[in-house]
């Protein structure tokens, strides 16, 4: 049974981790928080942002702070599934030739799938099993990935030429979607100051920076995951989440006008799971012992935004999914 002290200790560890990441990454609090939530819930994060905002740095920093095995795949159009999950190769040992499995970069704890939308759908789909079940099947053999496993995929919203937008099935497998936004003036000043001065920098490469030391280990992460799963969520709040998710469906009776008009497909039940678990993780990271409505509201957009598919009219009129989600949130009563 989880004690109060244990909960508080784990909360303290993650506070430290957050602070450590903050020493490297300037701004991007929402993105950092979404990353940690995904880590705590065992989900995968889709990071969207224009190049140069520090997405890759964030992932790298996280991996360093966690002390976990980190792998990076740069997705390109000619990338093949075997390049991700690995393949069987013929190896010769003592004069005998036999097939042996050579693991791909997916066999890591933290996988950075950079610019995932540049690979073909076939290659993108190679990640599906790993993302959902933490397993990889090659030939007739299924290989278990090491826990904790988290995929952090990035995609560029511009330069859509020659890209392959992620299919809905794959999008739905991302626990949250975080959007990296441009830094503010102060943040940008801070970024330039940190990255252009020597200040005891160890690397000789330009713009390189010192990565943090390990703050947390895998066991603590897994223990935190267990604690989070125990976080209490009352039935009225669970009911609220269900109504929120159902309200994103254009055929729902409680759907607001924007949803009926501009939405093609609403959020799946997986979205409800993401919302609840994300809210629990958010409450944990906030140092609270129960899930609040504010926790649900904090993860509502990251959990839903990539799961709402606009229809042609919505696309044509330039409707943003955020607007639709705001309408859903306003239209859904907290208590019936």
């Amino acid at each position: 049974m989880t004690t109060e002290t244990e909960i508080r200790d784990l909360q303290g560890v993650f506070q430290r981790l957050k602070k450590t990441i903050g020493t490297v990454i300037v701004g991007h609090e929402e993105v950092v928080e979404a990353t940690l939530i995904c880590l705590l819930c065992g989900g995968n994060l889709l990071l969207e942002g224009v190049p140069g905002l520090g997405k890759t740095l964030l992932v790298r920093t996280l991996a360093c702070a966690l002390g976990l095995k980190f792998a990076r795949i740069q997705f390109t159009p000619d990338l093949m599934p075997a390049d991700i999950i690995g393949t069987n190769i013929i190896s010769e040992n003592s004069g005998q030739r036999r097939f042996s499995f050579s693991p791909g970069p997916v066999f890591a704890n933290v996988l950075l799938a950079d610019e995932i939308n540049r690979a073909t759908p076939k290659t993108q789909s190679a990640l599906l099993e790993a993302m959902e079940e933490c397993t990889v099947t090659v030939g007739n053999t299924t290989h278990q990935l090491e826990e904790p496993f988290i995929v952090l995929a990035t995609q560029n919203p511009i330069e859509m030429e020659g890209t392959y937008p992620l299919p809905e099935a794959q999008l739905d497998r991302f626990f949250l979607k975080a959007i990296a936004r441009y830094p503010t003036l102060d943040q940008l000043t801070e970024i330039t100051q940190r990255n252009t001065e020597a200040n005891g920098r160890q690397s000789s490469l330009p713009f390189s920076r010192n990565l943090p030391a390990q703050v947390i280990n895998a066991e603590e992460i897994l223990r935190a995951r267990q604690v989070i799963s125990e976080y209490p969520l009352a039935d009225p709040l669970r009911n609220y989440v269900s109504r929120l998710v159902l309200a994103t469906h254009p055929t729902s009776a409680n759907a607001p006008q924007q949803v009926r008009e501009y939405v093609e497909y609403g959020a799946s039940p997986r979205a409800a799971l993401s919302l609840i678990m994300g809210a629990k993780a958010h409450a944990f990271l906030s140092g609270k012992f129960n899930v609040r409505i504010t926790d649900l509201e904090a993860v509502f957009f990251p959990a839903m935004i990539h799961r709402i598919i606009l229809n042609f009219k919505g696309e044509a009129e330039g409707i943003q999914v955020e607007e639709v989600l705001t309408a859903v949130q306003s239209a859904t009563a907290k208590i019936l």
Partner: protein
Amino acid sequence: MDRYAKIERRVKQRGCHLQGVRIALISLCTVLVFACVAAFFQRWGILPLHPLPFLIITGFVFFASGTIAYLLGRSKKIDLARLLFRVDLALKTDEQLIALYEVRRFGKRGFYDALTRELSVTASHASKALRLPTIDRGAIVVLILLITALPPALFAGIGLPEEIPAPLLTTEERYNDEVISELPPTEYPPSGEYRTVAPQDEPVREQAEMIPHHPLEDILAELWGIDPLSIAREGEGGGDLRALLDRQRAVNEALQDLLAQIEERLRDETEQELTTAEREALMELQRKVAHPALQEAIEQVLAADDPETLQEMIAEALQQAATQEREDREMTAVAEAVTPPQLDGEIADHHNDEEIADEVMAAAREDAAQEARERTARQGDDPGRQLDEQLAIDEDIRAGAEGLPAGEQEIREIPSEFIHFKLSGQFGPTGEIEEFLTKGVPLETLPQIGPAGEFRYVLNYDLARAILTGRLLPEHLQQVVKEYFRAITERERR
């Protein structure tokens, strides 16, 4: 008991109370809807109940249903999680209470301790945070307003002649707004006009022919044996029932005297036939008699050829006349017994009018005498002429006091013991309906002044029922009487 347990207990109690109130409110609203419908029926006489008993019954149902509903609501199972969530939202406690409820339910001690330590809400705060929803509070206000308005609405029409409820009436028909108009006594046309002009008035006659057979004919025929046709033939157009009965009694007595004389003559004389004078007198009396049975008896007397048969017929007619006289006396007694006190006051008013008239006459006489004295002083002494002039002056004074030319006073004179009613419409093919509305008819005690300045009398059906019951009238005949009054009122309304 820790803090949360106290809060939970208080919230539960408060929730039970509010649930009871809510269900009681629903119950009261339902009862109120029915009460309003019932009040509507009661107001329009469909529900034969007096406002006071109606209010008492409604109040009792209100109280009983409210109490039972409250108790049932209290004992009903409540959704505690939902209540705690409502408190959380009201007090902005970051959903601590609902979380505590959840962790307590599943025995998560670590979370429970941590949450209890952070809990900042007291039991009283939590209890006060639970309130009735706005719609329920609105319903309470509406309920109070309607309950407040119900008794005045029920009692509003009482005392007004236009819309008098008939609370104690046992019949389901509506009689409460039936009003009889009466012209002011000073505006009465001369009664003689009723006798002569009205029945001969062609439009009126045509209208009368269009009116179907009226239940009053049945009433009079079945109850008292009076034929309305014979009454109309008899020619009295504007009297009351008691006057009619008096006249009938006088005719009856005259008939009995005549028959007795004929019988005595037949016993003494050899002539065994009716003389021409007797025959004419009998025919005259037959014409005046209103009772069909008596008329028939006289007719048989007139038609009898055989002396023995004649004597038998005379004896039979005498017996019939005696029976009829007895019944008429009973009728008169009933009519006098039920005369409303204020009608006596009305008669007193008539007396007052007579006193005023006497005063006017005395003053006129005084003025005339003064004028005569002056004339005498001016013209010298001519006793014969003075006497003629004095006689002429006296005649003028008498006529002037009555407001009529001399010689017409007999026609204009209205018997003071009768109360004349003028009703619009006609009764049957025989004449005006006023013939049957007499002093004996049970009216409400207070006459009202109508919009046109006329007196309006309201029929008192309770009194009517008492009379009919006192006469041991069969139920179906009582119904006929009620039908009559309703019919004349509906006609008047038209």
